[in-house]
């Protein structure tokens, strides 16, 4: 039985070796070498001048992640209190836009937000505007929230389904008002879902490049754009591109580490 279960993992292990570990090794190799294959740190020191791009990416992704949590949390909770059919319908509705191409949906926002776009045309009917919405940082954040919100709702919902109604009722019986139920019961019990939601929104947001290009007008450059330029720009520079990817990975690892640490503490606190 034991041998069999090991055997079942072989396809994935092979997959992991070829498509995860080998490319990772190559990224590390390229990141620390020159085009000639000699060891160097220059790729990393050269990136210092793009520090503000990294900050901007993190800043915008953090905002997008917070918005997704604020929007996703109540929705996830309401869904978890619905009937079986209601939950399935809601999940379906949330998933539905994802059946369409990611690119197409982002392109759709472009036509909505433009100065001559649908939203401004609509506001014009009431004599308001026009507002400059496209090609701003706000538009980039909107694109991130719109595209990644389902990834926040789903883990929140699946963890909240497990919160027993009686726990909430007990808190209320013991005199907790709505606010206290939220911060003393609901949020602590949803921590694993919140952590997953943060990961699922933050990681793709911080590394996106197409959202910033389409909605940010190419002026709100993010790390993803910078990396893309190294590979598909006029200069093919896999070494600098790889070192940028490595830095991005380290940033994500650190941020995930901090969040997971917070997770552990919460858990311990709850046990005590």
């Amino acid at each position, binding site marked *: 039985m034991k041998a069999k279960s090991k055997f079942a993992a072989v396809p994935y292990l092979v997959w992991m070796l070829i498509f995860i570990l080998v490319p990772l090794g190559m990224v590390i190799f390229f990141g620390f070498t020159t085009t000639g294959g000699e060891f160097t740190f220059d790729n990393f020191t050269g990136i210092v001048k793009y520090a503000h791009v990294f900050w901007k990416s993190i800043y915008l992704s953090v905002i997008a992640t917070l918005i997704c949590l604020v929007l996703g949390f109540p929705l996830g909770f309401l869904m978890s209190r619905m009937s079986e059919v209601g939950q399935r319908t809601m999940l379906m509705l949330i998933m539905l836009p994802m059946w369409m191409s990611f690119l197409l949906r982002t392109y759709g926002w472009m036509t909505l937000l433009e100065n001559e776009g649908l939203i401004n045309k609509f506001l014009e009917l009431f004599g308001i505007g026009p507002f400059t919405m496209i090609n701003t940082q706000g538009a980039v954040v909107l694109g991130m929230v719109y595209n990644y919100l389902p990834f926040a709702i789903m883990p929140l919902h699946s963890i909240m389904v497990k919160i027993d109604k009686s726990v909430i009722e007990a808190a209320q019986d013991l005199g907790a008002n709505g606010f206290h139920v939220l911060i003393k019961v609901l949020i602590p019990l949803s921590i694993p879902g919140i952590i997953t939601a943060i990961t699922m929104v933050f990681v793709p947001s911080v590394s996106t490049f197409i959202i910033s290009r389409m909605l940010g*007008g190419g002026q709100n450059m993010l790390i993803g754009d910078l990396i893309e330029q190294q590979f598909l720009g*006029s200069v*093919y520079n896999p070494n600098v591109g790889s070192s940028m990817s490595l830095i991005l990975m380290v940033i994500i690892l650190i941020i995930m580490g901090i969040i997971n640490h917070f997770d552990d503490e919460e858990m311990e606190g709850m046990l005590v």
Partner: protein
Amino acid sequence: MKKLFAVSLTAALLAGTCAMAAGCGNGAGGNGDGGTLSVYNWGEYIADGTDGSMDAIAEIEERLGCSIIYDLYSTNEEMFTKIQSGAVDYDVIVPSDYMISRMIDADMLAELNFDNIPNAANLMERFQKTDYDPEGKYSVPYTWGTVGLIYNTTMVEEDPDSWNALWDERYDGKIFMFSNSRDAFGIALKLLGYSQNTTDEAQIREAADLLKKQKDVLQAYVMDEIFDKMEIGEGAVAPYYAGDAVTMISENPDLAYVLPKEGSNVFIDAMCVTKDSPNKELAEKFINEMCSTDIGLANIEKICYSTPLQNVYDALDEDTKQNPIIYPDDETLSRCESFINLPDETNTLVQDLWNEIIAE
């Protein structure tokens, strides 16, 4: 090192198997007797049977008795990276001018045997030998065109005739710019009166400063998004390719196109055969068919770019022949340059400066 080699080999084999599998799938429509040819071309760059046009690929498959795998790319760099990685074997590719000289330098293109391409004799004289392929040994031009200003006549105060319209404060927030560094620097360099192919660092830095200043009045850096944006009146002025300008003007008659007085870029996309092509002769025959009057005409009518072939030009309708956007006169063309490949240091400098400009 040995291990790395083994790993790359495995990867190459895997990719090869996938490509072969894909090939069998795709080639089902054609007659396999004459072999299989892989063609790598730009998106929307051939008559494909839509809108009543000829299906050029099916037609050539029939004439040559081969099956054709037809794949698409959207930038020269994407194509170059793929070919260079060696993971895919394409026989025929269609790079632009500067990319052809880069690939000739990198020994990635095969010398063509023109005995198999008799139709290449129809090339107009100035396309037989070009800046990027001075002896005309490696490439057969497919299309060409210029880069100019497309503007909305209802939004500009007077018809622009200079690149400085892209810096004009009156159109603040209604100006678009190329989001690729080579075209963007080309425009700035032309406005400053320098060559687009300069390798002089001071001139390039001066162009970079000019492009930085442009950010104040710019709405966005775009590529293909420009079609929608100009058609709905989102912008007043933008630079773009002549063939695409014709398409945009047909959608929105308020738009117009001008080739600025400072001169511009004339680009040529040409068909080449890769060095490692296993089907070189078939590839040459394919190129020959693409240069035939009926297929060449079908392609040009579909994609609206300019043809370098005299036989195809002669077969066009009068309106198109007389259209100064598609076929500018010699005096206008004499002000234009085509891109050549720049040395690595220059490319790196331009890309670094460009990143600084847009990341600011």
